[in-house]
């Protein structure tokens, strides 16, 4: 057992972990942060993505001991208790960037990191940027739209940590919905 000190979603934890414990298992099993999930055993799916010291990592490739002294943000920490949704979370909702939602926490964390690196990505750059995160449900198109929307919003807000206060846009009716080209 090794003792670690790690700050997760704003709370400092001191814990004993086995040296082989992966960060994702520490988060899920010891801290109950079950918003972060495990989708593979080869670090290919990205479901487990969290931020470690502000940078997206696949928490199944990081040992818990490597996070000693570090700061971890999970999907739960992206929305502080009672706080507004992060623009990226809201964009996923508004653009229907999720279906079953299993990939979603990881996808949101990866997308936030992408915008931190590149606040104004092209569609191509978004697709390349989230390549390490697999989604089986959405076909990615609405995820790309979500990242585009969040990017626009975060740029006008100044930075990603800004928490916009305005309400979600009004619902759209069929006639105005995108890509419904006609009725026979």
């Amino acid at each position, binding site marked *: 057992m090794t003792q670690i000190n790690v700050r997760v979603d704003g709370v400092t934890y001191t814990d004993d972990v086995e040296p082989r414990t992966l960060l994702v298992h520490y988060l899920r099993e010891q801290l109950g942060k079950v918003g972060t999930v495990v989708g593979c055993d*080869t670090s290919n799916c990205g479901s487990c993505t969290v931020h470690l010291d502000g940078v997206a990592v696949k928490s199944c490739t990081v040992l818990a001991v490597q996070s000693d002294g570090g700061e971890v943000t999970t999907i739960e920490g992206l929305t502080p208790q009672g706080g507004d949704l992060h623009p990226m979370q809201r964009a996923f909702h508004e653009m229907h960037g999720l279906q079953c*939602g299993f990939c979603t926490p990881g996808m949101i964390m990866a997308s936030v990191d992408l915008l931190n690196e590149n606040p104004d990505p092209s569609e191509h750059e978004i697709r390349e940027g989230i390549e390490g995160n697999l989604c089986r449900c959405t076909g990615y198109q609405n995820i790309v739209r979500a990242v585009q929307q969040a990017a626009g919003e975060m740029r006008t807000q100044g930075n990603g940590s800004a928490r916009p206060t305005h309400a979600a846009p009004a619902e759209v*009716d069929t006639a105005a919905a995108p890509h419904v080209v006609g009725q026979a």
Partner: protein
Amino acid sequence: MTAVEDRPAQAPEREVGKARRRKEDARLITGATTWTDNMVLPGMLHLAVVRSPVAHAKITAIDVSAAQEAPGVVTVLTGRDVADEQGSLPCAWPVTPDMVNPGHPSIAVDEVNHVGEAVAVIVARSKAAAQDAVELVDVDYDVLTPVLDMEEAVAEGAALTHDHLESNRSFHFVFDGGEAGTGTDTDQAFADAEVVVSRRFVQQRLIPAFMEPRSVVVQPQGDNYTMWSATQVPHILRVMLAMVTGVPEHKLRVVAPDVGGGFGGKLQVTPEEVISLLVARRLGKPVKWTESRSESLMTAHHGRDQVQYIDIAADREGNVKGLRCRILADMGAYLRLVSPGVPVLGAFMFNGIYKFPAYRFECDGVFTNKVPTDAYRGAGRPEATFAIERIMDELAAELGMDALELRRKNWIKAEEFPFTTVAGMTYDSGDYETATQQALDLIGYDELRAEQQRRRESGNPVQLGIGFSTFTEMCGLAPSRVLGSLSYGAGGWEHASIRMLPTGKVEVVTGSTPHGQGHETAWSQLVADRLGVPFEDVEVLHGDTSVAPRGMDTYGSRSLVVGGAAVVNAAEKVVAKARRIAAHLLEASEEDLQFTDGKFSVRGTPGAELAIQEIALATFAAHNLPDGMEPSIDADATFDPENFSFPHGTHICAMEVDTDTGAVRIRKYACVDDVGTIVNPLIVEGQIHGGLAQGIAQALFEEAVYDADGNLTTGTFVDYLVPSAADLPSFDTGNTVHEAPGNPIGAKGVGEAGCIASTPAVVNAALDAVRHLGVRDIRMPLTPERVWRALHDGGDGGDRATAGTNAYGGASTESTSGVSTPASSLGGDR
């Protein structure tokens, strides 16, 4: 069409048709989800499964003593230990009276028949301890020859998958239109035809690859059991587990909490669910099993895997005359829940949207030493659609006709609906011409053709191709009596109940169990419209047999069409009863009441009105109800459709093929789908996108590959290529709307459309790009190597360029290059 007058007068803001953002999202985007693997129960034990490393062997000895002694291990169980209680895993679809079922123990007893088959289970106090102990179980295997190739498996003298069976054939299913009275004599049609084109297509084995690995938790409480499982089918699972394990049905509660995707892959009664229940019963302790991704890819069921011999007959003008399909379908080592039903369901769709006078379908279900196949998104219909849409292109090429022109000549015209096909299905509604025209406009067809021409003329190494898929599918599974006629072991109805609470809020209970389809949102929209209550006031309950006691669950694009229809019918009953109470309270006759925007009002008497919420409260108080009326306005409804529904559409893919490297790239993809009434355009579009990604993945990326010993060589996400965002384009999607006449919503089903339609569109596009270079087929997935080989070596670029012995034991046919005259095609065994 649903009669407009059957519907309540609509609020100005009708919910149906609105792009409502989903209710489900709130928990999913914040991580506040209830995946099965999140469950932690006091004293919970963890399971790890010891799995066979060989494809086919006798088990001669199992030594568990070292594992038993390992730290944290509570017990180790082998198949022999539970032989008396494990039953055989169920196959609910015996498609022919003489179908052979070898039986399927959840833990192998004497022999193993595929790599990854369970041979023992470790029960330990932690997951790590259980996994560590797996290595300590010593199994002696007497290795047998594995049967791995379907065509070899049905040849004379083949090795057997199960040595207690006579052959590797499970069943032989035939549908003959001539005999069924739906068509003319098929052989005669081929004998009379001017042109016959024959092809052998391979539907490679695929892996559903839902993102959430399977997970099961079982909690015993006395002789009651609660099972949480990442399943699509909690209701079916409960019945089947009761039958298989002897745990009485009324003492078993099955819960599907948040489920991270299914695609048919979680439509199953798995060995691990049975094992978890057996262990929990034995030990009286809660247990959990969660698979790793490698375990999932290796042991959760696979999909597709057919070899198809397709013959099409036509005259020189391009009028189709007959279709013959002979299919080998790989069942894998065992029959799972609906394994044999998958190709049989497809049997009724091979004719596609075309008016064939003659049709015959024959299929053999074949055992091999691989993991069983079963439903995977589309289940039987992608295989059928691929075959017909590919062979139509081959026929067009043979006739020198435009591929779209050939389709137009033969498809059902808008004015001919309802249309009964040669396969005996009655297609409900549609307009193939309009959808096609819209899709052509959407993709910018004329410009693409011009560019294609320029690239050909300039000899550009990157050629452009345009591929079509004008398809239909059958959804809304299914009319119970039709399932009965196909020997399926259950009905196709769906159940719903609606409970109006005293405060006017509404609980909707649905038997349809979602895993990403957005039922909570769509069902709320349906009910809000019918009851005239706010969308937010509706709560949808599902996925727990103690909360939603009856249901047939979610698969085959049946949820909205069958489950949603049950919800709507329940809502109608609620309104009918509320109307009686309103009449009583308003002292009016029922006939004088109108129901608008959730209010009953008396015609001609201003101010005399009652909201449905007020009636709910009056029912709760029950102070003043009509004589003899029970104090509730809840209602149950069970909907059993009269017919399937038939979504259709036109998908067009424009694809670039680099003739130097074999690399392919989708340049543009457009589709127009007719899924009937659209309840929520956001959800519909999302489902189309997701389906497209999966169908395109079959065409371009995915294949479950076994090596010569029967090891799955695509056993991780490194080797099994689920596409990422960078691998896919954006899609241009559109809709036409022809309401389904068979349900009160008018919906046709959308979940599988993209997956069914896209695969042939993509392959047809690739072939259109290189056909002038002499390529007539490329085997899926279209990897650069396969494309390059097809360009340079001829053949289909696959690992089996021509069939050896064909599906029916006859001589070799030139099926991959099989444009032939009737004489040669009909010679020999045919």
